[in-house]
């Protein structure tokens, strides 16, 4: 994952331990302040051990020493077996850069004092830069007094600081409760699962992080073969970065000469256009014209779709004389396609913005904005999410066309006070209406924020040669029935 999001005020690098986990450093505000003590908590199966060990192995590969101390009675073989499922695991580092020790015996025989002594010895002998203590539950199960546990936590914190070690305690609980292990650590990260119907969404939350400006709230993550991938909540990142776009006076075409003529040569570069229409009105074909125009101008293009596969889009384009197969082969055009099912909305945003940054995309189609609504777990986020997404696209000067479907049967189209309309500089409406006893496609330019346009409703036709505008509907209505194509 590229460094798509750059937070505004990241602290100096040498004070931070970058986790190396995609998206997590963004959530943390750049990384973890070094030589501090952190608690990673979450119920069984939440991903704590994977997260901590992933950080460990990433740094071990850079030559750092990592110590994994387990406080459970099981051997390390099971843990290694689990980690071997991930690409970050490197068996050759085990026993060299990544050292495994068992602290259960020290805890069982001598309590917290003996455990602290054991940890001191490990740190002194091996001088790890990172230490992972797995099985905090065993400490709780040894039933220390509150004072003894507080003293242990205080001393452990002082110990890791004195030994220049960043340490992670893993605890199988949830919630920001007022227990010693929560209050006496420098940072508290929780991994949890939220139910969305029968589906479960993994989420990460930073409750506290001393010395760092982290993003609040929950952020979705996935556990993949590479390990954890965190998808920062787009609107939280956008609030922090607060990127401003510089409006452009350059104009780019729709790819439909008749429409470019109606709109004073087309769209402002970097603008966002909403093409709204009933099913079959021609939204996608208009979007394909838009992409073709970009390719003609040597722009790098991208289509994000939810409902029509890349093969179907190519086929649709060929039927109207738009052949995009060559640009697909040579990489000038890519299509990201996701069925609007169990997809994380922030993962989509990350993938989209990563692609734009990596390939320097200047022209984008999002075919079916309702796809975002369909996959959103928290529907109340959608307005903020779209505001953030549109802003990120503008800040990158990507000329964007977003299609949106209207209901098929409706007596009339009512303009609403929908806040979504303020997202777009330009709005084009496509629909079917009866003209001279037959259904005709109509196109209306509803809004062009920074240029003039012809507001007359136009009759639109789609043929083997693509979209054409036949003229104002008022003129067609006056002509004899059947004269239009």
């Amino acid at each position, binding site marked *: 994952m590229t460094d798509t999001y750059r937070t505004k005020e990241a602290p100096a690098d040498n004070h931070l331990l970058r986790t190396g986990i995609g998206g997590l450093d963004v959530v943390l505000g750049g990384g973890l302040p070094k030589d501090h003590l952190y608690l990673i908590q979450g119920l069984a199966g939440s991903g704590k051990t994977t997260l901590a060990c992933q950080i460990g192995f990433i740094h071990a590969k850079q030559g750092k020493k990592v110590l994994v101390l387990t406080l459970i009675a099981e051997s390390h073989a099971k843990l290694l077996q689990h980690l071997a499922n991930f690409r970050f695991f490197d068996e050759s580092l085990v026993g060299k850069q990544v050292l495994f020790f068992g602290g259960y015996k020290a805890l069982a025989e001598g309590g917290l004092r003996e455990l*602290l*002594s054991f940890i*001191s*010895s490990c740190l*002194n*002998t091996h*001088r790890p830069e990172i230490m992972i203590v797995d099985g905090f539950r065993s400490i709780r199960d040894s039933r220390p007094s509150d004072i003894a546990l507080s*003293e242990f936590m*205080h*001393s452990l*914190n*002082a*110990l890791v*600081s*004195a*030994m*220049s070690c960043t340490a992670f305690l893993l605890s199988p609980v949830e919630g920001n409760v007022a227990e010693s292990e929560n209050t006496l650590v420098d940072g508290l990260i929780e991994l949890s699962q939220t139910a969305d119907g029968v589906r479960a969404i993994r989420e990460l939350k930073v409750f506290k992080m001393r010395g760092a400006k982290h993003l609040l709230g929950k952020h979705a993550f996935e556990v993949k073969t590479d390990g954890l991938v965190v998808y920062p909540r787009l609107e939280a990142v956008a609030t922090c970065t607060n990127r401003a776009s510089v409006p452009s006076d350059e104009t780019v075409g729709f790819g439909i000469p008749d429409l470019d003529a109606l709109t004073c040569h087309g769209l402002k570069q970097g603008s966002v256009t909403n093409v709204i229409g009933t099913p079959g009105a021609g939204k996608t074909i208009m979007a394909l014209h838009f992409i073709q125009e970009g390719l003609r101008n040597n722009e790098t293009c991208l289509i994000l779709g939810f409902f029509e596969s890349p093969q179907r889009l190519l086929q649709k384009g060929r039927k109207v004389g738009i052949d995009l197969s060559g640009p697909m082969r040579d990489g000038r055009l890519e299509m990201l396609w996701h069925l609007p099912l169990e997809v994380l909305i922030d993962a989509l945003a990350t993938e989209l913005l990563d692609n734009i940054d990596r390939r320097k995309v200047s022209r984008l189609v999002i075919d079916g904005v309702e796809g975002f609504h369909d996959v959103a777990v928290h529907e109340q986020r959608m307005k903020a999410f779209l505001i953030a997404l549109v802003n990120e696209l503008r800040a990158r000067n990507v000329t964007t066309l977003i299609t949106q479907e209207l209901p098929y049967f409706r007596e009339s189209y009512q303009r609403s006070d929908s806040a979504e309309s303020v997202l777009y500089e330009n709005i084009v409406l496509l629909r079917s209406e009866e003209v001279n006893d037959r259904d005709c496609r109509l196109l209306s330019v509803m809004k062009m924020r920074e240029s003039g346009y012809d507001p007359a409703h136009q009759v639109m036709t789609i043929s083997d040669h693509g979209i054409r505008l036949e003229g104002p509907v008022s003129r067609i209505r006056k002509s004899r029935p059947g004269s239009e194509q």
Partner: protein
Amino acid sequence: MKLILIVDDEVDLTTTYSLLFKLHGFEVLTAANGREALDLIATTRPSVVLSDLMMPVMDGIALSRTLRSTADTASIPIVLMSGAPERHQLTAGDYDVFIRKPVRFPDLLQKIVTLMDTNSN
């Protein structure tokens, strides 16, 4: 015998340093303030004193000046630590080594070992 007296009102720090110095062959005594430290020194002479500056009852400056003003204890090496030295009016005679907190233990150990070697020579 290497005996270090660690003087600090932060229990977690004295606990941590005790553990670490013991691992390096030191015997360790701890005190929570300068008064307790003087009481310990009256019966057991340390090889080196490691003291924080800001402490209740008797601070590190008062401790070091008391040790320096007494013939029996004037030659005991003194290492002072503080996170804010500008708050104190230290003079060169008050200490042998000054360390600004936070300090990495390996660096602290190195300074103490060097000081003790110099003192023994």
